[in-house]
């Protein structure tokens, strides 16, 4: 965890007074079984420890927050993760370079295209493998579609967390389906795309596919307008999110936060601009920045980023060259890069997704390491939640935008 301001617990967590018929409350939910009541000052009741998750409607998977509450205010929050740990990095070291590609789909299962790209980028760096230009464009198109998809989902999930009976979520999913259909038509799978290869990509996009993608990108602003009319100006949403879960710029930088969360805190850092990987320098787009760093900013930054993504998509469709999609020298099988190390990173929808690889010249990486944006962004959860109510904790968690597959790996 980060160096969060230490919160003094007023004694040990215990149930609120008068709750239980007997003195000690054995909660099946809280760890450690019985809680001992402790003496606090005259005007405060005891603390209540609530274990939210791992099975909870809004922990976005098997995530657990052990929240210590004073009334409904959080005085301590301990995130517990690892329920979805499946040895991703070790598996990566025991399978071939290519064999890890489908596993990267399963990291952040909403954004498999960008995960693929980041991994392919790392391997290409390692092997010094060039990539054809058409593939670079296709990668940008797919990455921006993924950004649309991810941010759309997030907007839906966040609103669902605030209790909006599923309507924004359903609208978000309606649009998401269209992008998933595109992914399916191109890569064969909706979410587990496994599309990129080292030095190219697997399937070429047909003219019909490009036409459909162009139509989607053109129509997406319309959806965003409707969505924003539904919810952005909504007083209830503003009351729920503005000033809630403020992340100071300093904390964001020192905790290594990346992606929309960082930009919502007002830090201008976008790897697309900083690294200029792929063909991103050829596109004209802006990076929206928030001034408050609260949940509303994090939501709005994503909406604005979607609008910028649409711009990038339009430019990419216009500039897309023809040509091969795979470098002729690229190897699918028997791929053994020279010994060395490489770190490939891209601006994923959730932040910096990076892969660090060490090769010893063998068919498997010697070391395979993922830098997951969700996990690192999640580390500031407690700092953002302290002093807010349990209802806020849920939407703060939602605004971080985590996918447990990536957090736990």
């Amino acid at each position: 965890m980060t160096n969060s301001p230490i919160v003094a617990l007023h004694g040990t967590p215990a149930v609120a007074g008068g709750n239980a018929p007997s003195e000690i409350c054995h909660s099946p939910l809280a760890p450690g079984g019985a809680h001992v009541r402790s003496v606090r000052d005259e005007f405060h009741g005891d603390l209540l420890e609530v274990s939210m998750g791992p099975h909870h409607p809004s922990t976005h998977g098997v995530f657990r927050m052990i929240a210590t509450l004073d009334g409904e205010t959080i005085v301590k929050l301990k995130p517990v993760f690892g329920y979805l740990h499946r040895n991703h990095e070790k598996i990566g070291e025991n399978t071939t370079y290519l064999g890890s590609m489908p596993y990267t789909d399963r990291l952040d299962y909403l954004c498999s295209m960008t995960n693929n790209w980041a991994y392919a980028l790392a391997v290409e760096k390692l092997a010094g493998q060039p990539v054809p230009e058409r593939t670079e464009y296709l990668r940008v198109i797919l990455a921006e579609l993924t950004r649309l998809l991810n941010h759309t989902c997030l907007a839906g999930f966040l609103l669902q967390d605030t209790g909006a009976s599923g309507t924004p979520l359903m609208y978000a999913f309606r649009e998401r389906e269209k992008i998933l259909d595109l992914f399916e038509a191109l890569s064969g799978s909706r979410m587990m795309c496994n599309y990129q290869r080292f030095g190219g990509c697997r399937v070429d996009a047909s003219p019909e596919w490009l036409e459909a993608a162009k139509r989607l990108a053109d129509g997406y602003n319309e959806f965003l307008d409707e969505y924003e009319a539904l919810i952005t100006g909504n007083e209830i949403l503003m009351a729920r999110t503005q000033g809630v879960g403020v992340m100071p710029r300093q904390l964001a930088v020192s905790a290594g936060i990346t992606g929309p969360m960082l930009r919502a805190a007002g830090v201008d850092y976008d790897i697309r601009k900083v690294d200029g990987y792929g063909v991103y320098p050829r596109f004209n787009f802006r990076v929206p920045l928030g001034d408050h760093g609260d949940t509303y900013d994090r939501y709005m930054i994503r909406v604005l980023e979607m609008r910028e993504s649409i711009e990038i998509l339009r430019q990419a469709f216009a500039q897309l060259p023809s040509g091969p999609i795979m470098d002729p020298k690229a190897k699918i099988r028997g791929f053994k890069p020279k010994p060395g190390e490489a770190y490939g990173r891209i601006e994923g929808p959730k932040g910096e997704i990076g892969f660090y690889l060490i090769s010893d010249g063998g068919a498997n990486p010697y070391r395979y390491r993922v830098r997951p944006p969700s996990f690192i962004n999640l580390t500031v959860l407690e700092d953002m939640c302290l002093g807010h109510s349990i209802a806020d904790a849920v939407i703060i968690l939602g605004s971080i935008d985590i996918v447990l597959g990536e957090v736990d790996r």
Partner: protein
Amino acid sequence: MSIAFLIIALVTLGSAAVAMSLRNLIHSALLLIASWAGIAAFYLWAGAEFVAFAQLLVYVGAVSMVVLFAVLLTRQSRVDMAIAPDALRRIVAALLAGGATLGVLFGAVVSAPLPIAASATPVTVSVRQMGQELMGTHAAALLIVGALLTVALLGAIILASTGREDPPGVAPPAVAPPTRKTS
């Protein structure tokens, strides 16, 4: 004495008595509320429709909430009474207050000219009549009570608002060092 009266009285007094003897404060509070509902039933039986509904609305609907809140927010401690240094003073105060209330009520009941109604049709008062009485004959009393309650409410607000200076959204101040006791 009709059967209904007996039943109502039994419910009212019984729940009040059981409420006092229970150790579980929530159960006591709920029984107290049942007792209030019994009183409302009594009013209804006596033909005072408006008073009965007002009793239900105010006591079962609102005061009960306050009681339950108080029970929930007060730390429950069995040893409170026993080891309190001023237990004797409390008992004396309780006896004094209870005795005074009893005396006033008793005096009021005894001194009131209660005509023993021979007929089976007691006087019924419509809501309109009651309103006119309240705003006419007893307007002064109503106003005084209203003012009194307003003052009490303001006092409560002032009491509650002091000590809540810290703005929302800030972590509660560190009061004690984080000690973790386990047993």
